[in-house]
């Protein structure tokens, strides 16, 4: 049976728990303040003002104007909207998009679909750390390029891309620049103005806000079609009755995350480094992602000769929740395209483990994980036909 005495959640890149104070702020909008913000009676006004406040909170967090913030149902919708919306609205100017080989599927599958609709996509490669070279972006620009979409920080390996450099290039060449910042917002400093970002996607549940909430920042100069056609909500750009409690929660969670960012980064980086260094003591283990240009909470490591799903199952039995890029853990049976793009070969990608820390992670948790993982790795290596004799016990 699972060790119920421990419950160590180290999968904060997948989703985070809602902060209790954020939940509290949502409660009135799930009980008496249920009005539809579009209506003109009094209870609607309360909803409307709450949405306006959240819009300001989100804008402030990324250096935008409130009227440039549009609420969505999550990071996936924001990515789909930004990319499809710009492509459909600007197809008369050209049909070429630039992206990278390490995007989240919300971006890459959207691009693949647009290819079927007659758009052309260039996938920029990355180096072994998962970094995009801004010069490659520059070189990929064509006369018919209408959009550059490059993620702010990678969800698997935590690498932070050179967004300001890419933004500068895009602005100079007059091309719209979207960044999927779902893993970055609330975790690292972002300023859409100085970084020349035209569109930015974010998702509430990645910074201890509610699930099913997100936002897209759309700068003033952007021409974009709606993804959700319908009513007049969100200044007629994103239809659908507003998820008022969700929006309220998103706004507050982001405000809190940003206000605590400096302090919590320091704490997380220290824990992350301790954990990484400890795990790298296991022989034939490899860090993935960039050592410094990296999300404060991301530990990604690869253990040779073993398979990630097995590691996760054993960790779960020890009360530890984590994630892997192994093919066996994916519905498509494809190993992580991110680790492959970084140049790891498929067998080795099989043994990847991602531990992403959060608010509640303590030094004791790190100690416990550092005790548990080596045992599990050894147990699985003893069972594996690939393990060389000197690593068996």
């Amino acid at each position, binding site marked *: 049976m699972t060790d119920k005495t421990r419950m160590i959640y180290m999968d904060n890149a997948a989703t985070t728990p809602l902060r209790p104070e954020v939940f509290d702020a949502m409660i009135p909008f799930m009980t008496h303040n249920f009005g539809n913000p579009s209506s003109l009676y009094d209870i609607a006004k309360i909803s409307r003002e709450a949405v306006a406040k959240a819009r300001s909170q989100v804008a402030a967090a990324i250096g935008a104007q409130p009227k440039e913030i549009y609420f969505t149902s999550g990071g996936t919708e924001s990515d789909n909207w930004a990319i499809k919306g710009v492509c459909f609205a600007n197809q008369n100017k050209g049909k070429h998009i630039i992206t990278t080989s390490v995007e989240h599927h919300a971006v890459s599958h959207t691009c693949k679909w647009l290819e079927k609709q007659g758009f052309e996509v260039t996938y920029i490669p990355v180096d072994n750390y998962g970094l995009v070279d801004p010069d490659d972006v520059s070189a990929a620009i064509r006369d018919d390029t209408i959009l550059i979409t490059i993620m702010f920080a990678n969800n698997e390996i935590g690498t932070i891309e050179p967004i300001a450099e890419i933004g500068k290039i895009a602005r100079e060449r007059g091309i719209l620049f979207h960044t999927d910042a779902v893993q970055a917002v609330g975790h690292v400093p972002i300023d859409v103005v100085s970084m020349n970002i035209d569109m930015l996607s974010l998702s509430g549940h990645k910074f201890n806000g509610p699930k099913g909430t997100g936002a897209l920042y759309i700068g003033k100069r952007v021409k974009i079609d709606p993804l959700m056609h319908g009513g007049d909500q969100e200044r007629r750009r994103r239809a659908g009755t507003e998820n008022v409690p969700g929006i309220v929660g998103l706004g507050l969670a982001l405000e809190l995350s940003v206000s605590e960012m400096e302090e919590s980064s320091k704490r997380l980086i220290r824990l992350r480094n301790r954990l990484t260094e400890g795990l790298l003591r296991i022989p034939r283990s490899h860090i993935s992602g960039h050592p410094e240009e990296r999300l404060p909470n991301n530990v990604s490591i690869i253990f040779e000769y073993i398979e990630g*799903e097995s590691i996760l199952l054993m960790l779960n039995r020890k009360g530890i929740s984590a994630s892997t890029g192994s093919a066996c853990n994916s519905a498509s049976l494809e190993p992580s395209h991110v680790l492959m793009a970084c140049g790891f070969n498929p067998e080795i990608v099989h043994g990847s483990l991602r531990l992403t820390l959060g608010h509640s992670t303590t030094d004791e948790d790190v100690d416990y994980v550092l005790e548990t993982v080596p045992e599990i790795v050894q147990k699985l290596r003893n069972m594996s036909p690939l393990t060389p004799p000197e690593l068996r016990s």
Partner: protein
Amino acid sequence: MYNEKVMDHFENPRNTGVIKDADGIGEEGNPQCGDIMKVFIKVKDNIIEDIKFQTFGCGAAIASSSMATELVKGKTLEEAWDLSNKAVVEALEGLPPAKVHCSVLAEDAIHRAINDYRKKQGLPQWEEKSGKESHHH
């Protein structure tokens, strides 16, 4: 995701390891996900007297390796050859649909070990039958 029976065979796999002086060895890779299983058998009087395995794979791959080796131990080679991945899945009281293909690994690796034994004995190879339940995802 996995039932308790599967988890038991995953956490406490039976028959792991190698047989140094094995009479037959079979290794099979799963083309769908790249996982690998290696089987060692010891045969006496046409009966599988001992069997050991090593698996590089997911929980379902390890659990079905364990279960399959349990099921063929002490059986004749003919009986062992007839063990299907379906029987392994049934003995495990089910696998998630997306994980049924993992159980093929054990069936195939055991087949290879038996044919390796037959080759060493100078006997003709047995033919794989087609129509396995492998693509359930």
